[in-house]
């Protein structure tokens, strides 16, 4: 009896300890995956309670660090933004790594693990498919190539090594109980930072901004409808738009190559060799060639160095979600009240927490720059210094192409290219899975790049690349964006700035520029392969030399403009140029409404100041509605409407075309426009096809009222434009009633749009949901359900106290910190903080605290 009760109690205690000390995947599922080890997590001495930061910031700190060279002072301002003053470059970037890790370690590591396809190490088997796709996309391959370029240059090499050492110095002193909260939730520990992680992070940005192509969907469209229809509905240029580089800009080519001849056979080839996109019929393979000797394994890299080889990868950097995009613009002195140039930028991304950006000031001999950095990458990406300011938007050029490979029959190892046989190179990808398992993938690399999906072991499920096709993508090339940041951050003139741009190759960006001399400029900047017209619009033929990419367009020849006669520059993801630019960049740029609105406002602008541009960033005028709504309302047959539909009609008729947060009209209009587009383009509803753009829909509505496309395929009668407008209106009201009730007052735009800024692990308690925000897709303030301005900045370069900015969130990545979301309120209200730009260390009157990093051992 005594034995029994002891053994029972003892075992019970032991069992409970073991249970509460382990991650229990099978008990309750939380959004983070599974429960954290409860005992460890709730322990008030080491658990989550240790991440409950004090409201009061600690006063000045002295930290001794072994591998720093000279003392560095970090001034933290009222928003806990670090202002680093170092006496040499090494210490500067070391300190940037150190302070960034201090605030954002979990985020920067998690994002690089995700980029590298290593999420399974943290979340187990459910991450495997994600990891495999990342590996097969060549994310690590691309990062390794990029790292080679970074390490080959002594400047970027020193920066990356210093930055890495700084992060590792932070990790080294970190005790288990001080680990960021997410490590405790997911129960793992940080590993050492490496230079490769810097490259991985930049490649993950390339993936977000350039990792998509419509070639597969448009090829499917081509097979279904034929070239005439596709050329009509999917034109290379919008019927009305204002390109990034203003029409009329002269192209002064220094290095212009002879243009690649137009290949009329392209479309025909596709139609004969590729009858049904789903059947994936192999190309006819000449039998006698099969007897040829294998030409040897050729690395893509060797081919790129071969001048005869014309790399042929085009990527359509089309943004995934319609309406995500970014704005930048600058006005020169003729438009501003005090005759100085002013620049504004708001890059739109999927909004997440910890905040995407990290504000920082970097000061050392030769550099004094302020702006936002990406946690995990050295330098400042968007910002300003004493003389210049710059901001970016995505270009959206076609820098990722799909190639159908002419495989040797019965093989997925050998293929025909330009009449010669080649063998794929295998890249082994080992994925470690939490719990001890390992998964090995062997990814085939062709001359073009990796075979992402494979009919034998990684089947595509209607994704953007078909099985057994290879991709060519600029993100696989050796580029050195670290060097670009280095040069741009230090630039004080336009010439120095453009030198820095030469190193910024992927993801291609529209760089807006303004300086203290009053110059303004815009560059469509990045690696763009020279292509024939429309090359890469459809799936390309991987056996043909002429389908491979040409060399990249020389930097001097990239579309750019300095001090245009219209006195402003602007970009909003629209077409880079008009049709006079000799090189083909893409057919599918962003819709034109946002950029047209920006141009409209800037054209009329006089006597502007920084606040004028701030207000413009929060403009919520619905350009789409302004174009089509009058016509839609005119076509509504009011005698056929129900009482509720008439009420909705009346509200819409009185609308001021502003997508205000608590207005009803935007809800009705957006729902109507969506249904209208689906009903018009019902022929394209098959998920493998793609719909024509919004701009094309506008043209159809306004200029082609008799078009056959208005007809609904499912009915025997022929519907007119008016029929479709009426039926889609009724359907929209029905769906609004179904989802939001019969009370029209409850159809507030923000409640339907539901803008959320979510924590990277989708934990609701760490997120902000259903925010009371207006705006919308293709509106300057482009707030959609998950995307929007990730950073808003307005700068008058060279003028003290005239730099402003805000992002959703805060400097700290810790949900238990008061600085996790302290900037949020200003962002919600469209307000900007005055950014503290310290010219010297003496400008420290308003700082909160300082941290001194000194050489020495702890």
């Amino acid at each position: 009896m005594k034995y029994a009760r002891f053994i029972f109690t003892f075992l019970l205690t032991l069992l409970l300890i073991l249970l509460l000390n382990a991650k229990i995947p099978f008990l309750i599922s939380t959004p983070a995956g599974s429960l954290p080890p409860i005992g460890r997590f709730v322990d008030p001495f080491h658990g989550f309670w240790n991440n409950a930061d004090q409201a009061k910031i600690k006063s000045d700190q002295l930290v001794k660090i072994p591998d720093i060279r000279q003392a560095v002072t970090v001034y933290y301002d009222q928003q806990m933004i670090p202002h680093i003053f170092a006496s040499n470059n090494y210490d500067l970037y070391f300190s940037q790594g150190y302070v960034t890790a201090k605030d954002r370690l979990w985020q920067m590591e998690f994002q690089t693990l995700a980029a590298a396809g290593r999420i399974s190490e943290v979340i187990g088997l459910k991450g495997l498919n994600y990891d495999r796709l990342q590996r097969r996309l060549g994310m690590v391959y691309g990062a390794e190539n990029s790292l080679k370029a970074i390490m080959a240059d002594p400047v970027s090499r020193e920066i990356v090594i210093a930055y890495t050492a700084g992060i590792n110095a932070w990790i080294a002193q970190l005790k288990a109980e001080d680990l960021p909260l997410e490590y405790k939730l997911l129960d793992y520990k940080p590993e050492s930072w490496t230079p490769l992680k810097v490259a991985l992070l930049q490649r993950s940005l390339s993936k977000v901004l350039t990792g998509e192509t419509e070639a597969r969907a448009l090829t499917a469209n081509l097979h279904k409808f034929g070239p005439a229809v596709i050329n009509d509905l999917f034109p290379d240029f919008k019927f009305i738009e204002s390109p990034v580089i203003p029409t009329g800009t002269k192209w002064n080519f220094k290095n212009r190559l002879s243009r690649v001849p137009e290949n009329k056979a392209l479309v025909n080839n596709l139609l004969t060799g590729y009858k049904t996109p789903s059947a994936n019929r192999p190309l006819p393979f000449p039998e006698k060639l099969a007897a040829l000797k294998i030409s040897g394994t050729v690395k893509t890299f060797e081919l790129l160095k071969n001048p005869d080889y014309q790399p042929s990868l085009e990527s359509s950097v089309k943004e995934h979600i319609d309406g995500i995009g970014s704005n930048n613009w600058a006005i020169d002195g003729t438009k501003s009240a005090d005759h100085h140039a002013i620049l504004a930028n708001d890059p739109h991304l999927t909004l997440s927490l910890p905040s995407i950006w990290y504000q920082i000031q970097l000061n050392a001999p030769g550099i004094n720059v302020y702006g936002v950095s990406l946690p995990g990458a050295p330098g400042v990406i968007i910002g300003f210094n004493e003389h210049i300011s710059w901001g970016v938007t995505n270009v959206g050029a076609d820098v990722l192409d799909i190639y159908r490979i002419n495989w040797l029959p019965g093989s997925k190892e050998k293929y025909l290219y330009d009449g010669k046989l080649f063998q794929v190179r295998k890249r082994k990808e080992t994925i470690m899975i939490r719990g001890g398992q390992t998964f090995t993938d062997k990814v085939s690399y062709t001359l073009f790049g990796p075979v992402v999906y494979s009919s034998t072991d990684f089947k595509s499920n209607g994704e953007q690349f078909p099985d057994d096709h290879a991709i060519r993508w600029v993100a696989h090339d050796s580029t050195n964006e670290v060097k670009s940041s280095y040069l741009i951050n230090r630039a004080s003139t336009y010439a120095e700035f453009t030198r820095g741009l030469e190193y910024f190759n992927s993801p291609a960006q529209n760089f807006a520029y303004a300086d203290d001399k009053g110059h303004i400029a815009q560059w469509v900047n990045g690696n763009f392969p020279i292509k024939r017209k429309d090359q890469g619009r459809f799936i390309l033929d991987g056996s043909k030399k002429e389908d491979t990419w040409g060399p990249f367009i020389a930097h001097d020849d990239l579309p750019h403009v300095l001090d245009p006669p219209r006195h402003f520059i602007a970009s909003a993801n629209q077409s880079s140029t008009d049709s006079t630019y000799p090189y083909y960049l893409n057919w599918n740029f962003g819709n034109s409404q946002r950029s047209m609105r920006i141009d409209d406002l800037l054209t009329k602008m006089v006597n502007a100041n920084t606040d004028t541009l701030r207000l413009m960033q929060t403009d919520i005028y619905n350009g789409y509605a302004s174009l089509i709504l009058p016509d839609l309302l005119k076509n509504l047959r009011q005698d056929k409407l129900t009482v509720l539909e008439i009420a909705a009609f009346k509200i819409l008729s009185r609308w001021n075309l502003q997508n205000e947060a608590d207005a009803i009209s935007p809800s009705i209009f957006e729902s109507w426009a969506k249904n209208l587009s689906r009903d018009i383009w019902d022929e394209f509803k098959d998920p493998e096809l793609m719909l024509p753009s919004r701009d094309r829909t506008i043209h159809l509505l306004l200029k082609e009222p008799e078009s056959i496309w208005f007809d609904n395929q499912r009915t025997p009668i022929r519907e007119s434009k008016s029929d479709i407008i009426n039926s889609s209106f009724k359907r929209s009201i029905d769906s609004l009633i179904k989802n939001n009730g019969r009370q029209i007052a409850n159809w507030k735009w923000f409640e339907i749009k539901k803008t959320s800024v979510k924590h990277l692990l989708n934990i609701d308690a760490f997120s902000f949901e259903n925010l009371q925000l207006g705006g919308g897709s293709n509106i300057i303030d482009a707030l959609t359900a998950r995307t929007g301005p990730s950073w808003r900045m307005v700068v008058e370069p060279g003028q003290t106290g005239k730099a402003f900015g805000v992002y959703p969130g805060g400097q700290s990545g810790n949900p238990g910190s008061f600085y996790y979301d302290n900037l949020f309120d200003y962002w919600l209200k469209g307000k900007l903080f005055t950014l503290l730009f310290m010219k010297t260390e003496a400008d420290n009157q308003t700082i909160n605290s300082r941290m001194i990093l000194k050489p020495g051992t702890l």
Partner: protein
Amino acid sequence: MKYLFLFLILLVAQYYGPWYLIAIVPFFICSTFQSKPAADFLFTLVTVFILWFLVALFKDFRNQSLLSGKIAEMFHLHSTYLLIVVCSLTGAVIAGLGALSGNYFRDLLRVKK
């Protein structure tokens, strides 16, 4: 007195050691100093409850319940105080069981003599 001793030892031990010391320390103390099983269980439970409660409360106060509010929401608890009570109770029960095991273990040794 025994439990005050336990409180102080745990306060120090917990700073340096893992959380399950809250079971190990009472095990040894209760297998050394004799008490009734019910008393060992209950008083250890209360002692550790108070220890964890106070430490958590202190950290929560400094943080103005910013984090505890979020963690409470994550665990579907409706108040930060409920969260502190649940957390403290978790530790307290384990500690009580550790104490009880120690008490029974002492009993076992005595029989052997």
